[in-house]
């Protein structure tokens, strides 16, 4: 029986507003389209009243009640705007921002910077918007940018929380948390006892688990609701966090188990990168597979993409026509009852119907539908006996269901699957199939619903939907009646229904109930993160240890994301000169990455590099420990920075300059050190400027001071030194009337570009150290080409230092951004070193 909901009338900002029984003042305001800022409130969660942004004034009510928690009553008079409210909200927002990295929000160059860097840096710790995966979706950022003020009147109190990277799937950076509480509130709402809550008090308060256990050990079911509801970048989806914001959403049903939960898929450039719940109420919850494994399964690097047939003993990629003809030619030999088709549940009704047609009606054989989660050991013994005895001579398998022994007994084998398997290697024909969001049709769920899948995405490679393959093959066999132009023609209204076995337990509530296989394949092999949830992989993924190579003497994180790495490399140490760099390859399959030689010790035979973690390879380096080995270190490479200026550059400048001004930002702070030292030793007056987004990101100050005559700091947020960057100090020094002979700037491309833009026209030469993509580093491959003036130069052998005013910056940015997608996909999805493999939870 439906409740009669009464409505009440109240006044908000002078307007009469209708509210429904049970509405809060916030609900009523929203109904009327009156905006009130909120952060901790969420339409799907019970009111909490923590952020204090939604405060209002209500007649006859003391103080400033929060509209999200105050029930709307008849005759209430509410004001959402007033001078006092504005001041209090601004103070609250300011206080909130003072506990959160905010330098980008108050940086004067933010818009330009984000124009040239459309993607945030894929840093380890999010020290600013420019290094935060949620830059485009962050509510706090949105609110802050909407409030006009480019200064914060309060210093930032950074919380030194460790990055939580050791759990699968979900990454936490508590330095970004504003304790809105949405995450643990949604966890409580969905699961009863939440796995996370606020722990500790005062400045130590943060989101955590009981007794600091891992999330896996705390009963987290990895439903991902906390990720989706977090308004900042604190809790993120490890796999999809760096994909660009432009995407579309696709609502469909999961096909990893018969529950067939509804999902909202996030599709970016045709690829499924994430899967979200459709809401935050309990029935919409997902399990770890639907939430996290789904996108990774579709994106698996080892997917079968090419149809293949065995010719002369070898599997050869051929066209679909050839493959279909070959299968259609072979199958009629087995229409005597010696054919078996092993289908994989869950499958679409259309797949199943077509398989029925093929296996039973056409081939007069048998159809076995393997239940969801089953594998080779679960094949019915009758089938195994029949194959072993030779009564079944031809098999079509839709998954990994055949053991080595059985495979040896099969005369003709067709594999229609999406991943390689033992069977695929022995098959006569391999048909790559479309899976999950690439599939089309309808599903019969365990709760006897029929759900229609969304319009399919284009399948990877040449994969096709199974039902179409059967159609083609059947037609190629000359059998009539299978024209079936579209998937909707396959299942007829009078087709008998079939029941689907419900899944064991409920993986949405218990990680122990997660099915271990999909189409017979071990899920933990496809998605290694599942190992931490107790699913066993065929081979536990262990980090490959580099046993020979260059020894790491030390690796320290000097400031967040910046690592000082000392390596034993005596030959390089002996020959190194200021301005040169070394190429580092951590493992035999790692990328070659160039880093400036910051320091070297000829006696000890060591070199020092400063590395910023911004992606896969730098992350690899960031995890190195003293005593470990690096496969390859090549150097010294590049031309050392000449202490005088080459003749074909700016004219009429003395050979050894008298005053040079050096500027370093981010990793450039380290890079500028050997330059400063060299100029000092050559007798120049050295003025060094370093910049960072905030004062806690500055490092090597003592070392730089010791080799400089004058030393300046600049911070983007003004927390120390001059508010602004290197270019601002350069201009200050120029305006001081200082006779500057040369500028040298090393930092990110945007910083160097800005320095060039601001100091152009002063008549002072500027040298910058360019950082294009680089591969071999010795002048062979051309990857590092840059345009300087009208010439093409290679940064590795003609640079890395070039005339800053002549660099084609746009081209440099375009080339640096060219592999954004690949870089994102390259970031490891597991914790790597330290990934625990748990006992299956009971």
């Amino acid at each position, binding site marked *: 029986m439906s409740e009669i909901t009464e409505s009440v009338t109240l006044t908000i900002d002078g307007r009469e507003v209708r509210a429904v029984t049970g509405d809060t003042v916030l609900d009523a305001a929203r109904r009327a389209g009156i905006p009130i800022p909120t952060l901790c409130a969420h339409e799907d969660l019970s*009111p*909490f*009243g*923590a*952020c*204090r942004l939604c*405060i209002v004034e209500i007649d006859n009510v003391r*103080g*400033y*009640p*929060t509209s999200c*928690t*105050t*029930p709307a009553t008849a005759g209430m008079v509410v004001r959402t705007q007033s001078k*006092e409210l504005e*001041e*209090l909200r601004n*103070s*609250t927002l300011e*206080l*909130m921002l*003072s*506990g959160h990295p905010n330098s980008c929000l108050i940086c004067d160059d933010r818009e330009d910077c984000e124009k040239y860097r459309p993607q945030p840096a894929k840093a380890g710790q999010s020290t600013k918007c420019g290094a935060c995966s949620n830059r485009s979706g962050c509510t706090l950022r949105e609110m802050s940018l909407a409030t006009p003020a480019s200064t914060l*009147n*309060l*210093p*930032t*109190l*950074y919380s*030194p929380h460790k990055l939580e990277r050791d759990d699968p799937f979900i990454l936490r950076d508590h330095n970004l948390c*504003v*304790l809105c*509480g949405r995450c643990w509130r949604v966890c409580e709402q969905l699961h009863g006892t939440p796995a996370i*809550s*606020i722990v*500790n*008090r*005062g*400045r*130590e*308060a943060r989101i955590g688990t009981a007794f600091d256990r891992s999330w896996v050990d705390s009963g987290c079911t990895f439903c991902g609701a906390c990720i989706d509801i977090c308004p900042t970048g604190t809790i993120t989806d490890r796999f999809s966090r760096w994909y660009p914001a432009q995407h579309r959403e696709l609502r469909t049903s999961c096909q990893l188990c018969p529950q067939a939960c509804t999902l909202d898929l996030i599709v970016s450039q045709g690829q499924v990168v994430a899967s979200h719940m459709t809401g935050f109420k309990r029935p919409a919850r997902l399990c770890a597979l639907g939430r996290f494994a789904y996108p990774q399964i579709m994106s698996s690097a080892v997917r079968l993409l090419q149809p293949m047939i065995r010719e002369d003993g070898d599997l050869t990629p051929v066209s679909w026509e050839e493959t279909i003809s070959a299968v259609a030619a072979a199958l009629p030999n087995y229409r005597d009852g010696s054919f078996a088709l092993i289908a994989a549940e869950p499958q679409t009704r259309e797949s199943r119907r077509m398989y029925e047609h093929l296996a039973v009606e056409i081939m007069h054989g048998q159809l076995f539908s393997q239940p969801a989660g089953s594998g080779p050991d679960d094949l019915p013994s009758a089938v195994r006996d029949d194959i072993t005895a030779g009564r079944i001579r031809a098999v079509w398998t839709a998954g990994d269901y055949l053991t080595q022994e059985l495979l040896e007994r099969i005369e003709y084998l067709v594999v229609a699957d999406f991943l390689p398997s033992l069977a695929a290697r022995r098959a006569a024909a391999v048909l790559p199939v479309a899976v999950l969001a690439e599939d089309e049709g309808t599903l019969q769920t365990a709760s006897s619903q029929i759900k229609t899948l969304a319009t399919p995405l284009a399948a990877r490679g040449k994969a096709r939907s199974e039902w179409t393959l059967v159609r083609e093959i059947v037609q190629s066999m000359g059998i009539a009646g299978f024209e079936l132009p579209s998937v909707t023609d396959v299942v007829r209204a009078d087709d008998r229904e079939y029941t689907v076995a419900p899944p064991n337990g409920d993986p949405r509530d218990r990680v122990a109930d997660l099915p271990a296989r999909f189409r017979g394949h071990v899920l933990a092999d496809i998605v290694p993160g599942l190992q931490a949830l107790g699913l066993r992989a065929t081979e536990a993924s262990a980090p490959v240890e580099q046993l020979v190579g260059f020894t790491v003497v030390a690796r320290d994180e000097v400031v967040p994301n910046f690592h000082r790495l000392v390596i034993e490399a005596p030959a390089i140490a002996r020959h190194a000169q200021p301005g040169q760099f070394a190429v580092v390859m951590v493992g035999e399959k790692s990328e070659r990455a160039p880093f400036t030689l910051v320091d070297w010790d000829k006696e000890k035979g060591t070199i020092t590099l400063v590395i910023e973690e911004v992606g896969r390879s730098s992350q690899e380096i960031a995890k190195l420990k003293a005593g470990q080995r690096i496969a390859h270190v090549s150097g010294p490479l590049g031309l050392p920075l000449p202490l005088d200026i080459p003749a074909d550059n700016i004219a009429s400048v003395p050979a050894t300059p008298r005053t040079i001004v050096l500027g370093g930002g981010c990793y450039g702070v380290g890079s500028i050190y050997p330059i400063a030292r060299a100029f000092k030793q050559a007798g120049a007056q050295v003025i060094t400027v370093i910049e960072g987004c905030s*004062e*806690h990101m500055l490092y090597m100050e003592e070392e730089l001071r010791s080799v400089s005559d004058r030393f300046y700091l600049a911070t983007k947020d003004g*927390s*120390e030194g001059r508010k602004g960057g290197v270019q601002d100090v350069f201009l200050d020094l120029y305006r001081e009337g200082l006779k500057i002979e040369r500028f040298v700037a090393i930092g990110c491309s945007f910083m160097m570009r800005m320095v060039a833009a601001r100091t152009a026209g002063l008549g002072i030469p500027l040298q910058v150290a360019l950082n294009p993509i680089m591969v071999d580093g010795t002048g062979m491959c051309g990857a590092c080409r840059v345009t300087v003036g009208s010439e093409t130069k290679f940064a590795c052998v003609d640079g890395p230092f070039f005339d800053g005013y002549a660099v084609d910056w746009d081209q440099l940015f375009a080339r640096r951004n060219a592999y954004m997608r690949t870089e994102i996909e390259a970031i490891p999805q597991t914790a790597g070193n330290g990934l625990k493999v748990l006992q299956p939870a009971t």
Partner: protein
Amino acid sequence: MTLATLQQQAAQTWTQFARRDRRRVLIGAATCGRAAGALRVAEAFRNEFARHGLPFDSDSAEAMASTGAERVLLAEVGCLGLCYAEPLVEVQSGDGSSVLYQRVTPQLVPKLVETHLLGGHPLPHSALAVMAGEPILEIPKFEDLPMIRQQVRIILRNCGLIDPTQIDHAIARGAYSGLARALELGREAVTAEVLASGLRGRGGAGFPAGAKWAFAARSAGDEKYVICNADEGDPGAFMNRSVLEGDPHAVLEGLTIAGFAVGAHTGYIYVRAEYPLAIERLQAALEQMRAGGLSGPNILGSGFDFNIHIKKGAGAFVCGEETALIAAIEGRRGMPRPRPPFPAVSGLFGKPTTINNVETLAAVSAILQNGASWYTKFGTEKSRGTKTFSLAGKIERTGLIEVALGTSLRTIVEEIGGGVLGGKGFKAVQTGGPSGGCIPAQLLDLQVDYEHLAEAGSIMGSGGMVVMDEDSCMVDVARYFLTFTESESCGKCVPCRMGTQHLLRILTGLTEGTGTPEDLPQLQRLGHAMTKASLCGLGQTAPNPVLTTLRYFAEEYRQHIEEHRCSAGVCRELVEFWIDVEKCNGCTLCARNCPVDSISGEKKHAHLIDTSQCIRCGACRSTCNFGAVMVRPRAVDRGEKRVVANV
């Protein structure tokens, strides 16, 4: 069982205990006494009795039944409130008089036993007061002591006089007669009586208790709760602790009456875990209540069922806030929640709930025992009754006192408290703990009641009163309270969590000499935002110590900022110590106490502090008996100010 039966039994036990014609030793063994060494004194007595071959008994019911006049009765009692003089021991030799001894040590015990207990001759040197009988020698009567004379002990009526582990003692002195009367009067009449008494909640808010009960009584539903808030989190406050340790039945009776008035059948006492003795006393008292039919089903045959549960806290100041306390009892994280809904409508487990402070409930039992009009004789029109205060800090006589509301601050500090310790200059009294404020010397004649304290910018709070002298730095005091509130903030709401951090950061900077003039308006602005926008009382009142010290001691702030000077000599970074050669006589005491050997000098010659070595710990200053170690502003090169990123 009727009350009359219980009272009969009680009278017998009490008479035996309270007889003046027998040998008896009472030792003040509440937590304050124990901290001063009372248990060692008790052991010394037992050893001494054994040595003399004196049979002695405790005052348990069994023992009381058999004890004869010649056996010594030895019992531990609660706190009399003269904490500065602990351990306190009351000795009577059987001649009808009884003497209270102060600062008793185990060394004194043999003499006490021999000379007074057995010999009948009191020792005037160590005596504080005469508890029964006429003044002896120079020893005044207890009620004439300056510390006691002005007190009106209603809440503390039994503390220090009864054995808190014996329900009979409490009953003999009136306990549960209030409950019996309440059961006869009926719910509405009881609420009306409490309302008429003018009793205001003693936890700090000062809301009329009767009105609070009426809200919950009016709420629909037959499942309701009453809760006694015994969390007492203010640093330096021990009023509730003393009542719970010294006279638990006063509170238990009050809670039961509250339950009856409101219509609840279950009561909780939420006691902080840091009060193990109080918890022990409550548990024992509860068992005795049940045995006597005073708790549980059908209390005193009235048909009223009421069960009391004790719930221990787990170390969070914020759990003294009523909605956080409710969450804690429910097994949830102790975080406040917004109101509405108010606990009277939806509280514990979503049911109508009334929460009262320990002291409020101890007053309730007295009110029902003696009547509302009796209660209105004490206090002022708007602030009826009495209030306990824990008098602490730089005062001669620290302790637990109870006065009628409206008593002047001067009376409390000078007459009851005996004035500032060591005769130093009075600077301020801090009332209300971390939520309160400082009352400066010019307001010493302030009447202590809810209105006048609020006008002065402070609050009554739970009753903490800390006296400060010229050696207290008010900026440092504000900083101290902020270190407390910052670490106790639950972290839920932004203004409190971040605001306390910033206030603390700024205050710490001020005490370290890195303050700037912009800090003062910043403190005001943040304080204002916190007061208005915080979710609960913790955040709303956390700025109070700052705001009140800014109001009355702005000069000290100015000195810290502009002159880098701390005139009280407290802020280490701002002071340096030097020895006045006129006053120094070369006793070498300071040099011997210096932890870094920075003081040089020959015996009998003036000494010198090497300021480059000195770490400014202040040991020399406090050990010098001649006041020769002086304080002056420290001359330092300020250098470039660096903003503190992490406090």
